[in-house]
Structure formats: structure tokens, C-alpha cells
């Protein structure tokens, strides 16, 4: 890209040199300036920086009429513009790359997958060969063996839960609820999910107190959880019939310009 007149007139700020001692030699026979400067680094050390700069004046031969036209006066909307490109009409875009290649047909149209799967990464689950499981030639013969395998895995799991008595033994979360000890995921206290209702489409202005006021007339509750910015709440009643009554009454109930939607909480649906 040819540099504009403007760029020639004012050197880039990157070329500006701070107020440090400078020693500029005259250009040597190759037209190279040597700039030696001493500066103090941030850590207090004094360093000597030697830069070699070569300036080259590029002359371009242009058609005579083109040269004449470069001196034209601006007209129309640009009438009052000073010479040189104006920022309101002319800008430089960001760097763009044109990469030419001969067999671009696939290369261009299909974006390269982010993670290339090399053959070494592919291991068949059946026969451990270097191909996708679905393409395994032993798929059918291995299938029966595989079912056996999963059966044995299940029995292992059940044996694990039987070993419950041993304290301190790590039990994977997926197996924990098989233990039937009343402890759910993690160490959170487990509420009786059966009596929990989920209220959605609650206005964002609703406070915990508002919700309690709304709920308490149906009966005693264990826990009221309100997520205001998401506009939903979980209410866990002590008695199931209270929960049922609340669900029937509040579902479709207009509350602060919104219509509440009430349903049994997700977990107890399953």
C-alpha cells in the first residue's frame, strides 16, 4: 500500500524518540543511519540501544496526465477540504489477508475442524482397534460380550453400596443415592421433594416477604426459595395436601401484573 502524503508529513508516533541522549551518525555508503542512544530501563540499569535505520525515497514514474490530476482542486462536497485524505470519508481498514492456493475447493468452503482427530486418538470401544466404534468389524460378535461387561459393572456398583459400612471410602456421586441413607447429592439437606411446588413467572419486584405472605395461608412450609432475577421460586410444604391446594389456587393467579404458573417441582415429576 502506498503511503499517503499525510503519512510522510508526520512521522508515526512509534518513531518518536524520547528525550534521551542520542548519537546519530551520518549515513554511511549504504545509506544507513546508525542511532546509538543510552536509556535507563525500568529496573534502573543503563542500556545502550543501537538502531540502524535505512531511509529510502521511492520514486514512482506516473503518466503526465496523472501527475497533472494530482494537483486538481477539490470540488462538490470536498470543496473546502484541505489536501490529503479526510478522516470523515477515508479510513484504513484492519489488516486483511488474501491467501491464494491452488486446491482451495475444500480448504475454503469447509472450515477446518478445531480439533483434528488423528488416527492415534481413535480407539474402538469393542476391539481397541484404530477406528470408530461404529465402524468396528467385530461389532456384532463383541456386542454380547459388552452387555456382559455392563452387567458386571452394575453388580460392582451394588457391591459398592453394600460396602457402605466402611467409612472414608470414596463413592462416586452416581452411586451415592443407591445407598438409601437419605443423603442426596453432595451434603445438601434433603427435603421431601414430593411436597415441593415450583412457581414461575413471578415479577422481579417480589420479595421473600411478599412470597411468604402469598404462601403461608396454605399451610406451614419447610423452605421457600426465591430466585428473583430469574422469576421463579420453589416452595416446600410440610404437608402434601397443602402443596396441592396451593398449586391449584395459585396456578393462573394474577400477581403483580403477571400470571403465575405453578407446577410440581421437576425432580418429583420423574
Amino acid at each position, binding site marked *: *500500500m502506498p503511503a499517503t502524503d499525510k503519512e510522510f508529513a508526520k512521522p508515526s508516533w512509534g518513531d518518536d524518540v524520547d528525550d534521551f541522549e542520542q548519537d546519530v551518525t551520518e549515513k554511511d555508503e549504504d545509506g544507513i543511519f546508525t542511532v546509538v542512544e543510552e536509556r535507563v530501563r525500568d529496573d534502573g540499569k543503563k542500556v545502550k540501544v543501537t538502531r540502524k535505520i535505512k531511509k529510502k525515497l521511492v520514486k514512482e514514474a506516473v*503518466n503526465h496526465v496523472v501527475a497533472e490530476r494530482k494537483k486538481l482542486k477539490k470540488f*462538490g462536497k470536498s470543496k473546502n477540504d484541505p489536501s490529503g485524505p479526510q478522516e470523515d470519508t*477515508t479510513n484504513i481498514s*484492519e489488516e486483511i489477508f488474501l491467501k*491464494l492456493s491452488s486446491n*482451495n475447493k475444500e480448504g475454503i468452503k469447509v472450515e477446518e475442524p478445531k480439533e483434528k482427530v488423528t488416527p492415534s486418538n481413535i480407539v474402538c470401544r469393542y476391539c481397541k482397534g484404530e477406528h470408530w466404534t461404529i465402524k468396528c468389524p467385530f461389532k456384532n460378535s463383541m456386542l454380547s460380550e459388552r452387555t456382559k461387561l455392563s452387567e458386571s459393572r452394575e453388580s460392582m456398583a451394588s457391591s459398592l453400596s453394600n460396602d457402605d459400612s466402611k467409612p472414608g471410602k470414596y463413592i462416586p456421586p452416581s452411586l451415592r443415592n443407591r445407598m438409601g441413607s437419605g443423603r442426596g447429592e453432595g451434603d445438601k439437606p434433603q427435603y421431601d421433594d414430593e411436597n415441593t411446588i415450583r412457581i414461575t413467572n413471578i415479577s422481579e419486584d417480589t420479595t421473600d416477604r411478599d412470597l411468604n405472605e402469598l404462601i403461608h395461608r396454605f399451610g406451614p412450609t419447610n423452605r421457600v426459595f426465591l430466585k428473583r432475577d430469574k422469576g421463579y421460586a420453589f416452595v416446600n410444604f410440610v404437608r402434601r395436601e397443602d402443596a396441592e391446594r396451593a398449586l391449584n389456587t395459585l396456578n393462573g393467579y394474577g400477581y403483580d401484573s403477571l400470571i403465575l404458573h405453578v407446577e410440581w417441582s421437576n425432580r418429583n415429576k420423574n
Partner: protein
Amino acid sequence: MRPILLNGHTRSLTKIKYNREGDLLFSVSKDHTPTVWYSHNGERLGTYEGHGGTCWDIDVNGTTTRVLTGSGDNTCRLWEATTGKQLHVFETKSAVRSVAFAFGDKEAIFVTDATMGNKSTIHFVKIAENPEEQQPPYKTITTNEAKFSIARWGYLNKTIVVGHDDGTISIFDAKTGELIRKAKDHTDTIQDLQFSNDLSYFITASKDTNSFIYDYETLKVLKRYPTERPVNSAAISPLKDHIILGGGQDAMSVTTTSVTAGKFEVRFFHKIFQEEIGRVKGHFGPINTLAFHPSGKSFASGGEDGYIRIHHLDPDYFTFKYDEEE
């Protein structure tokens, strides 16, 4: 490369054209102001004030003294290229779609639309040395079939090569106005028609998503460049065996498409092998018009987004060789 962004236009570009030496770039857009730019640094030289409607086409004569613009305000205007002074207004009965100076600058044609009972017409005018003696069109060619979308002079000003709205390409005798030859390979509007340097073949861009290179003498399709989207413009590199295509989906469906899926890139194809060799991103709307610098060292594109981008190609572009070329 870092393209130069020209944002003087307030609406989508309709046509850009370099002058003969390539130092100036002329542009028209749907705003009413034809504009001229210095192509080497993107500086705006001036604007041509006077049109009252969308400008569809612009042409500059060989010596860069006159500019002809066609507009939707039912006029075709002749300007002094270097001062912006309006020299003459050709009043028409419908919108002017296409304008072209003849080689030698003594004549010009402009194409008017078929609207309100007027037939689509090619008007011939003699360009007077003294603008005050400028005469109205002395001859016309009309059609009863699909209307003309673009018209260009054939070599030695002997013929007029015309693209139609239904995809037909026809060649008329410039003297008698008779139809010499026609071919229908495209199935939708011819959006652009640009000649090679020696005028022996030309490239078309059509809404039917194809771009063809036609032999001028026989109107046989020499090369085909199929794409998957409407092609708005196509240009032949005067330097290398490349062509560039620009397009995108219809303007009305642009807002519902993301930039990455919109395919608003300029696509480079190898002219001989008809294979895509590269793409240049940048516009965020369909590309409406493309032009190669006469030297082949840079090209410009004008988009529906209202920007013109001038690309001065990097040195490695010129050293690139296609596999089969080595």
C-alpha cells in the same frame, strides 16, 4: 494488505469504475451524489451535485474530461470530470440504467428502463466538443422482449453488447441497430458485463448465481464460474489469469443473516481452471460492484453496506502460481 475504506456514500453502491490511467475511481450509489476519488490513497476529489434520484451507472471517457451518469430521476447527465460542473442533462421518460462512452469519446449510449408504457431503450448521443451545442439522442434501439439491464460498446464501436433482464446476451449493430447475435445461457438478470483488455471476450455476472466468460465473436460460453449465491459483479484481472466475483443474497434478507454466513467476500477464481483460489473479506453486506485497476495491482469493491474498499494487493499475490502453471 490493509484496504482503504471510502465511506463518502450514505447508501449502497451501484457502480464503481476506474478511469483509463486508474488514478481516479468514480462511484455512484443510491444516494444522489456521484463521487470521484484518488485511487492510490482514497482521498475524495469531489462530488457531482445535481441528481435527484438513485444513480445506477457511471462512465468516464478515455481522457478523463467527461463523466456520464444515469439516474432514477429520469435524467442522464454529462459532467466535467475534473471540476464537477454539470454540462448537459438528457431528459428521459424513465430511469437510466446503464451508460457508456464509446471508444474515442465522440459518442455515448444510455439505457432507459421499461416503465409506464415506455419500452426499454438504448439511446445514442454524439458528445459535442462544446457542451452548449450538445444535441439530444439521434438514434434509439428498443426491445419488445426482456428489458435491457446493461449495455457496453464492442470493439471499434461497431457493436453494442447488451445484457437483458431474463439473462439473454445480445449483440446489436451500432450503425443499423439490427440484432446480430444472441445467446441465452443465464436464466436471470445480467447484473454486470465487463470486457477483457483486448475486448475479445467478456465476463457476465447474473442473479442466477453464475458468472460466464463469453467469446465476443461467437457468443459462446468459454468458461463457467458457478457459485451458490447471486453474483452482482464480476471483473477480469488485466494482469493475471484471475477473475473476481462479488455478490451475496438479496438485500432484503441480509439483516437476518450473520456476516459469517452472508458470504460477502470477494472471491478470486482462476480464469482458466475455473477454480476458486482465494477470498477477501471485509464488506458486511452484499458486494454490488467490482472493478480492477487497469494495472491489475489493485481492485476496488462497492457494497450494499455503503462502503467502497480499495485493495492494493500484497507482493505475494503477484508471485502466486497455480499448481498447473508451474
